[in-house]
């Protein structure tokens, strides 16, 4: 049945290169998450606002991000924007695509969380003399993050998984890109990608563990 000789030593020799790739993967995922959270807060507030333009723009962003494939969004960031003469390098195209996606999903998470926070809290903060921004920043937002923390952790794992799509727009430095480069030169598909799968699993576990530590540090009473 197994008429195939595994060449594992070849894969293990490439492990250092793949670890460097994993670093790029984590870098893109973390940055896209930070940017995604920032955009998502703005989008959530904009979607709940009565300003028609802000509401429309936020709704469009959120619905497109949630109703089209991530692969499509990344492809658009590279070749779609390219049609307008806007040239994002593969790294930035991947970054833009995942940030767009993260922001869309997180905005809905935040919107749900904001609805769960009683408006009396804002009023109480205002009556203590805080400005509207200050009240949002110091009273509402910390609670919003606390409520949304589990879905945010999931989104972070998805961000890691989505980075693997960078190779479709010519990125060769992240974990999937490095693995594919090794694959197309040696055609030892199973060995290299099995090793990549183990690395992705470890990264995802590390993210979950890290999230648990952060939650324990930040959100205990």
């Amino acid at each position, binding site marked *: 049945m197994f008429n195939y000789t595994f060449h594992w030593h070849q894969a293990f020799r490439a492990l250092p290169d793949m670890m460097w790739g994993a670093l790029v993967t984590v870098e893109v995922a973390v940055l896209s998450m930070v940017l995604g959270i920032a955009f998502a807060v703005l989008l959530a507030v904009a979607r709940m606002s009565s300003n028609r333009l802000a509401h429309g723009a936020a709704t469009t962003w959120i619905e497109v991000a949630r109703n089209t494939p991530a692969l499509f969004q990344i492809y658009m960031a590279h070749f779609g924007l390219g049609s307008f003469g806007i040239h994002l390098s593969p790294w930035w195209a991947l970054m833009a695509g995942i940030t767009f996606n993260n922001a869309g999903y997180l905005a809905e998470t935040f919107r749900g969380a904001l609805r769960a926070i009683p408006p009396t809290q804002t009023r109480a903060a205002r009556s203590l003399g805080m400005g509207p921004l200050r009240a949002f920043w110091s009273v509402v937002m910390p609670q919003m993050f606390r409520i949304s923390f589990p879905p945010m952790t999931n989104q972070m794992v998805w961000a890691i998984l989505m980075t*693997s799509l960078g190779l479709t727009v010519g990125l060769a430095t992240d974990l999937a890109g490095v693995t594919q480069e090794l694959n197309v030169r040696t055609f030892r598909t199973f060995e290299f990608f099995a090793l990549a799968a183990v690395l992705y699993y470890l990264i995802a576990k590390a993210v979950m563990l890290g999230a648990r530590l952060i939650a324990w540090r930040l959100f205990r009473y």
Partner: protein
Amino acid sequence: MFDTALTLKDLMFLAKGAGITLSITVVAVLFGTLLGTIFGAFKAQASALAAAPLTFVLDVLRSVPLLIQLILANAFQSIAGFGWSPFMVACVMLSLYTSAYCAEIVRGGIEAVPAVTRRAARSLGMTWAQDMANVTLPMALRVALPGWIGLTLGVMKDTALVLWLGIIELLRSSQILVTRLQEPLFILLITGAIYFLISFPIARLGGRLEARWREND
């Protein structure tokens, strides 16, 4: 408005791709839900130790990029000499992938049913099976349905990755047309619109259901 070389035939070509996208989605969601329900019910009932191997496998399916799972599955079937078609590989892998998420949804649903409710059902003389069928599952379904609709839509979008196996689904058909016609923006926008038209109404329906059921709680 647009000066395009896109013909009706090309639109039919895209529609055919969308058909492939939908058929893989249906197969994956069907088998994924079936498997996921079994896995989820098992995880909710069995001890953590007994469920550990299953938990680990499902965890791997949720922690490794789907693209890499597809590549690995395809490489494995060739090494093992199964002789599966790419369509088969895509359906099997996506079903397993779906089942991993579905198991969590089902487990969450079952665990959301308060233990006292189930004890009350049993004390009324219901058997375990009667309790499951008449009390626990109907209540769990309500909790799980919005998540399940979200999962279905997620799988529909994730099928785009099977283009890597050489399957000409919606996104791949659009790339073929882009290659021939060189109108990337226009064709990609049409493709995005098709995905949106499939996904958005179902997403809205899910949101509506969720809101309505919340009112009854």
